[in-house]
């Protein structure tokens, strides 16, 4: 069963076409990677999927709901973690999680959801410190906890380990694996090819607003006769540049 279906989607910013008829699908329980160079249209695609910006043409379906016409239903099913996202700095980690939980549940359920978030974040006593005292790694853990504690059917993560040190990035990747094992479908974008290769079941590469390849990491490596996904990425981008 498909959790996400993107069909021939275009996005225009004035006269500029940022996304040119992309199409891909993500199966339930899958970790799907969206890769591509800077300005390729990854964030625009993720923003359209998460109902943040409108679609110029084409269609996106999330968990059976149409993004353009059933935005409220889509938002109940997803959790979006933007690149470099932050939290309200004057709140503590706990009050932030409780604030978010309040949109999904009532009373006792809010406490349970909040506790789940606290467990996922695993920040110890610092969960009661103000967010503006958190390190980047702590902030990322809190935000992932925020995104996952609501038990979404579909999690969308943009550059989830961007700017983190090796240890923190490793911890976050382990956390994503655990989340996927619990049955959450994940769509993530990343510049870290090692991360994509180690986490994703399938990958799509976007360049200049178009999907130029998609498949499992193994299929793509075989197709481009490459040792790793980074090589696939470089060869893929160069082949597009040569053809244009």
């Amino acid at each position, binding site marked *: 069963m498909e959790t996400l279906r993107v069909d021939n989607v275009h996005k225009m*910013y*004035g*006269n*500029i076409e940022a996304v040119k008829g992309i199409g891909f699908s993500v199966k339930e329980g899958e970790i799907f990677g969206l890769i591509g160079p800077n300005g390729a249209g990854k964030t625009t695609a993720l*923003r359209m999927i*998460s*109902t*943040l*910006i*409108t679609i110029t043409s084409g269609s996106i379906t999330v968990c059976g709901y149409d993004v353009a016409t059933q935005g*409220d239903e889509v*938002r*109940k099913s*997803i*959790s*979006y*973690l*933007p*690149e*470099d*996202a*932050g*939290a*309200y*700095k*004057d*709140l503590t980690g706990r*009050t932030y999680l409780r*604030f*978010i939980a*309040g*949109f*999904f549940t*009532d009373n006792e359920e809010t406490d349970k959801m909040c506790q789940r978030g606290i467990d996922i974040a695993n920040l110890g006593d610092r969960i009661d410190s103000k967010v503006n005292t958190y390190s980047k790694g702590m902030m990322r853990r809190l*935000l992932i906890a*925020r995104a996952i504690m609501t038990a979404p059917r579909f999690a969308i993560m943009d550059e989830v380990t961007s700017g983190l040190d090796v240890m923190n990035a490793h911890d976050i990747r382990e956390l994503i694996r655990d989340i996927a094992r619990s049955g959450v479908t994940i769509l993530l974008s990343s510049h870290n090819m090692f991360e994509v290769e180690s986490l994703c079941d399938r990958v799509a590469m976007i360049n200049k607003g178009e999907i130029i390849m998609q498949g499992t990491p193994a299929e793509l490596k075989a197709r481009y006769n490459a040792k790793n996904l980074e090589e696939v990425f470089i060869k893929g981008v160069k082949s597009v540049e040569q053809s244009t």
Partner: protein
Amino acid sequence: MNNLLNLVKKELRELMTIESAISIVVVMILFVGLGFMISDQNEQAMEPVRMGIINYDDQGPSTYYDTVNSTLDGMYDSATRDQYLIKLDSPAILSDGEIISLMQDNGLSNLLVIDPNFSENIDSGTQGKIKAYYITENSGAFGGIDSDSVQGFVSAINGAVSTKLMENELSVDSAESAFLKSPVSFNMPDNYTYINGKLYSDITPSAISGAMMSQTLMVPIIIMIVIMVVGSIVISSMGTEKENKTLETLLTLPVKRTTIVSGKILASGIMGLVYGAAYMVGMYAYMDAITASAGAVNLADYGLVLEPIDWAITMLVMFASILCALGLCMILGAFVKNYKSAQTMTLPISVLAMIPMFVFMFTSWNTLPAAMQAIMFIIPFSHPMMVMQNLMFGDYLLVFAGLIYCIAFAVVTVLVTVKLYNSDILLVGFGQTRLGRMLAKFKKAD
């Protein structure tokens, strides 16, 4: 509703910081302090002037020594005269420096010196000389009151000496000389003023206007401050949301955009009301101090008073006006990129608040030309600035028209804000829209 409550609580938690609480308390203290200070100054101003006098005219044969003395004595209550009118004896003529020292030694701020040749000069047909010395320390609004009184004393002496002179020179009695000096009778009770359907004697429009001015002068300033503060709060909040990228998270939560907009506006509106109420309390103390002072015109005696219902209407108009400011700020906030750019976005709101402030500080609705009245009516911040005066004078039509206009204005701005929240502008900015790109091209070509 839970979502709205959740949002309002979060917004208030962010807005109700220690800093904002301190600023509210400080403003209250400032106003209350200002009220007490003015009250104290008023009371001081209403006390009889403590004045010294050195009359050198008694050093030789004097025609007018008793006239001067009795005139000054008549200016004071006989029971307390010795406390306020200090007669100093000096056998020798003192220099200016010696006079100042004498005043300081006796704790005097005002002193009149009657020239040794005062009577002699007048008898010979030239003017007798009086000098006044002042020591001033208070340069506030009431700093000139004492010197004005001294001028009045000299004027009284002048009148008394003139009467005496007429009696001596024209051989008329005192009644005739008084008539000759003032053949027209016009005293304070002879002034009649029609206010709100009732005729009052003993008061002039000038006195009413002066009292009104002193009581309502601060209102436009307070409204302007409140609007600028709440406007800055909401625009900065939008800037911070964008800068911290919390807005993207908020917009992907299962909550309607209308609820998000309403949550922000309501929370900021409550903060605005807290600021407004704090300013009102301070202003009430300030007004009370002014009106309680003896001798000041008490507008309540002339039916010019706000009843509790009028205060409720005033608060309602103020709240509606604050909602208008918040609606406008939410629209402007949609275009800010970060906290820094948010600061400059408050400028249009500040200007819109400052225009009616300057207009209503010095004029009133009725004195404005029609075109200016139209402009003032369109600016929603004008209405709370003039509401108190309009209520005092019973102009309810203008008050309620203004209230309805403010509510309609606020609703329209909220709808526009929701529309913006549902568009791409909020996240991609104005520059990424068709119009934004066209303007950018035009700018480049230029």
